[in-house]
């Protein structure tokens, strides 16, 4: 199975994860600073900034796109509860 790397730059931890892993499944376990509210893509609490490797994350769904717009998120921002790792690349993240 394809693997990708998620690097949480606020705590300096890189985790090797299989494709399909959502950021939320990893960030809490490593104690990164991304925080969560509803955990289902509605509240916008888990906005994160993607420093590099956006192309290695799944495209936002219509739901996530709507919430990103409502929260006036920049192009480098995603919801950590929604974004999935596609694999084969490193994604560097930090809390928004």
């Amino acid at each position, binding site marked *: 199975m394809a693997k990708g790397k998620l690097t949480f730059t606020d705590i*300096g*931890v890189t985790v*090797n994860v*299989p494709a399909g892993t959502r950021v939320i499944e*990893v960030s809490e376990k490593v*104690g990164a600073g991304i*925080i*969560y509210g509803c955990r289902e893509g509605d509240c916008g609490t888990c906005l994160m900034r993607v420093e590099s490797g956006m192309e290695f994350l799944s495209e936002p769904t219509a739901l996530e796109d709507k919430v990103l717009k*409502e929260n006036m998120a920049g192009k480098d921002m995603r919801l950590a509860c929604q974004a999935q790792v596609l694999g084969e690349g490193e994604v560097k993240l930090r809390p928004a």
Partner: protein
Amino acid sequence: MAPRGQQAVEIADDVHWIGALDPNLRTFDLILKTANGTTYNAYAVRGAKGVAVIDTVKEEFSGDFFTRLEQVARYEEITAVVLNHLEPDHTGAVPELMRRAPQAHIYVSQRGLKLLSALLKDELEKYVYTLTDTGDVCDLGDRRLTFVNTPYLHWPDTQCTFLEDRRLLFSGDVFGCHFCDERLYNDLVGDFRFSYEYYFKHIMRPFKRYVLEAVDKIEPLDPLLIAPAHGPILRDNPLDYVRSYRKLSNSYLPNEVEGKEKSLLVFYMSAYGATADMARSVYEGAGEVEGVRVSLYDLQGGEIEPFVDLIEGADGLVFGSPTINGDAVKPVWDVLASLISIETRGKLGGAFGSYGWSGEAVPMIEDRLRGLKMRVPEKGPRVKFHPTEGELVVCRAYGRALAESLAGKTRPKEIDLADL
């Protein structure tokens, strides 16, 4: 002048209070006590081009609201409905108001749209709305309402609205309190100082940094009158109330920890001394890290409120609890259930404890800390019965790791998901 019967009250030229009095309320939103009831303040501002209604009331008081509104405006004259905050105690009459004045233009903050949609459901598509930001204007012809975005005071959607010609700030929940006195003005009503501070402490306190940002925006407006959505209208020394928000947003305790230091608090409860021994090792390990001031507290020896004040000013919290009947002990939960009134977001958290059979307390506390939007960087140690010397070494290392994480001294590392 007090609202006699159901009279609207003119608080400035062509500006009327059209809210409702609720003197019998004793508990608000399940969490706030009030010995004086509350008021739901709504206002109508008349300009050359129409009337703006600013906020409404709790639904069951809609009758009072519409009675007062009808004294000062006809529905067809209403050109604007400004919603400073979308909680039900201010929007209860909005659906009916919009049915009666469907031509009115709704003004709501960007973050308020989602709530407006939830409030009006399918009816929203019948109306026109504008999403506001700081500096945006609602033009009433000869007078203007300017919007001031004040997010998180106390919801993401909250805003204030400023009537420029009268320097009148419609502040929503900001500078409000639960106090019902039909004399309405701060220089006429009874002593509401306690209610004002109590309201801040329970509603605004978790959002102190946003309060300070908002005060920075509001002070330069130099309002002559502040008309909040609850409690007395502030016409006597209104700026004193703005300044009090700044003062109340400072820490309740003088900060003994220098800016370059981080503060880590270790709390514990112990039935047989095992968790206490672990706590001491966590404390000692954390104390080895330069730049972190560590404190150790036995929860049996203190009361919740001072602990909450301490926690508010701390950067990290660790809780030691034995597991009894598959749960953490009640004093730990009591503290963890009392943090609603402070900001915990972004603090560092951890848990450890001794147990006899199953040891659920540690992961349960860690989950609660995550729920409080804290980061939990290390899996907390659990020890069956009394810790051995080796297990105390593990506790010491745990304390050190937490402190290093707090101080930003963790070395970069690479791991596999399966190892987590």
